[in-house]
């Protein structure tokens, strides 16, 4: 079953002479238990596509369906709720809340999502163990290494048991070895849970850990809708 269906999505920024087409008739299907790499140079539209799929941006035209939710036409409030409950984000850099401990960075989702605090706390403890962070659960981000911070970020993305994990340049601020470890870990966490995942990257070395690679250039998916394969 398709976890994400993108049909003829176009996104235009600005109007008239200043209009910039960031996405052009993009179509893409993503199945459950599939981890996809979105590969493209800077300014190619990959972040815009990720934003549209994550309910952060509304497309100018076309439809985006995640699970059974059609994102097109959702109000801002509904978009917020969708992001809190159905999507897990792993951002570029680490982007943890600096004054929350590793565990609190995960349990903060109890105040944001619809899941109960008890359930979130149980899941957070389980994830901390799986990610090898139990001993570091009470540490603030500044006391964690780069790899540990990224693992906390992965834990935060998974703690609400979302349908879809969106990953933005996870290796941008990590060295090759650490970057590889993090992407491998991401791939294994996503696959072991049977989730759908999309990773935006421009690092060709990382695509080997994904199921499929889709290239994007000037807002067009080069091998998108037909699910054509790898780099």
């Amino acid at each position, binding site marked *: 079953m398709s976890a994400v269906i993108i049909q003829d999505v176009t996104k235009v920024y600005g109007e008239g002479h200043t209009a910039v087409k960031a996405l052009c008739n993009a179509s893409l299907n993503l199945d459950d238990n599939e981890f996809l790499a979105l590969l493209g140079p800077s300014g190619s539209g990959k972040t815009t596509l990720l934003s549209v799929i994550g309910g*952060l941006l509304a497309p100018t035209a076309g439809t985006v369906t995640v699970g059974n939710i059609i994102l097109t036409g959702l109000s801002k409030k509904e978009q917020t709720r969708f992001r809190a409950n159905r999507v897990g984000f792993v*951002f570029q850099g680490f*982007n943890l*809340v600096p004054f*929350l401990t590793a565990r609190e960075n995960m349990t903060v989702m109890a105040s944001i999502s619809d899941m109960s605090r008890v359930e979130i706390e149980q899941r957070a403890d389980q994830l901390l163990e799986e990610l090898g962070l139990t001993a570091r659960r009470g540490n603030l981000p500044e006391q964690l290494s780069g790899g540990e911070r990224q693992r906390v970020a992965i834990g935060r993305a998974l703690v609400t048991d979302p349908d879809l994990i969106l990953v933005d340049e996870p290796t941008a601020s990590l060295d090759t070895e650490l970057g590889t470890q993090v992407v491998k870990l991401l791939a294994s966490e996503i696959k072991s849970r049977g989730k759908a995942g999309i990773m935006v990257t421009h690092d060709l070395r990382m695509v080997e850990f994904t199921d499929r690679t889709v290239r994007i250039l000037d807002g067009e998916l080069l091998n998108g809708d037909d699910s054509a394969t790898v780099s």
Partner: protein
Amino acid sequence: MQLAFAEILRRRGRWVSIIGAVAFIVFLVLVLAALADGLFIGMTGALRTGNADALVYSRDGRRSLVRSVLPISDLSSVAAVEGVADAGALGLLLATAATGADSFDIAVVGHLPEHAGEPKRLVEGRRPELGELFVGLADVSLRAEGISLGDSVTLTGSSEPVEVVGFVQDSQYLLADTLWVSLDTWERLRFELRPETIGLGSVVQAFPILVDEGADVDTVAAAVDRALMTTETITTDQAILSLPGVEQQQSTFTAIIVVSFVVVGIVIALFFALITLEKRGQFAILKAIGSSNPFLLQGLLVQALIATAAGYALGFGLSRLLALALPSTVPVAFLLSTALSLFLATVVMGALGAVFSFRRIVRIDPASALGGEA
């Protein structure tokens, strides 16, 4: 909540600075308010202590207790007006008294015992018996002049000392100590001290009145003036504001206090504006992962509440310390009601300051969390 508390606990340095800034402004405001209250109380006690609803002045006295002169014979006409439940009399004699080598200003107030205008708050001793001459009630402020129960106060120019048989509270007149005596005693003292007024006969400065229960004070006041033709009757509140300097003093202090509160709001607003700017990326991330604007506003308000409440508590403590150190001659009054209303004002200004920053947070685009912009 979790976010709001954790940030304050783990980023103590910056929060201590904002709490300190609020504390100093609150301290300033509380001291100013205590001075304003102290001055107001000290200046207006004589008019408030009698619990009168209104005061009858002579029209040519133009609402001034010292300028107003009313023949005591008019009292029965005032008492007879419909709606007047009780009428008393107030006579004012500004004099000098001496205890040993020191002399001090004193306001001798003549009144009709057991009638409107009589000082109500007896804190020590007894009230003079009806018809008892040259005994009186002293304001507690006279204790600072060394006067105790049973002592006699001799007015400069008078041969008859007045024995203090009781102390009353909150009955000063324009910050002067007061001595409350019966109208008979007062008249004898007046004739002795101001022989030039003997020709005026039995006169007083005002008739304090109580109106019937449920009667409208303004309506009764107008009825008194219609009946007597030569009077101007005003409510006690109006009479208080007509005392020289009281209204001006109140408005000056109020202006300073209001400006200080605006400063509290601006300080909090600037502080939150700065941290909002600094946390822009963090807010973008929080919004991207599903934090709603009301959730973020709640956190902001909780932080503003903590900062202002803690600042207030500290400022309050400092003002109490100052109160202990101030000499008793400084007219300050730290009133619970003032402290509570200033607390509310501080918290409200803090919340307004925080809300001002919230507008910026609302404008942060959650999409900016992606692409390494945050």
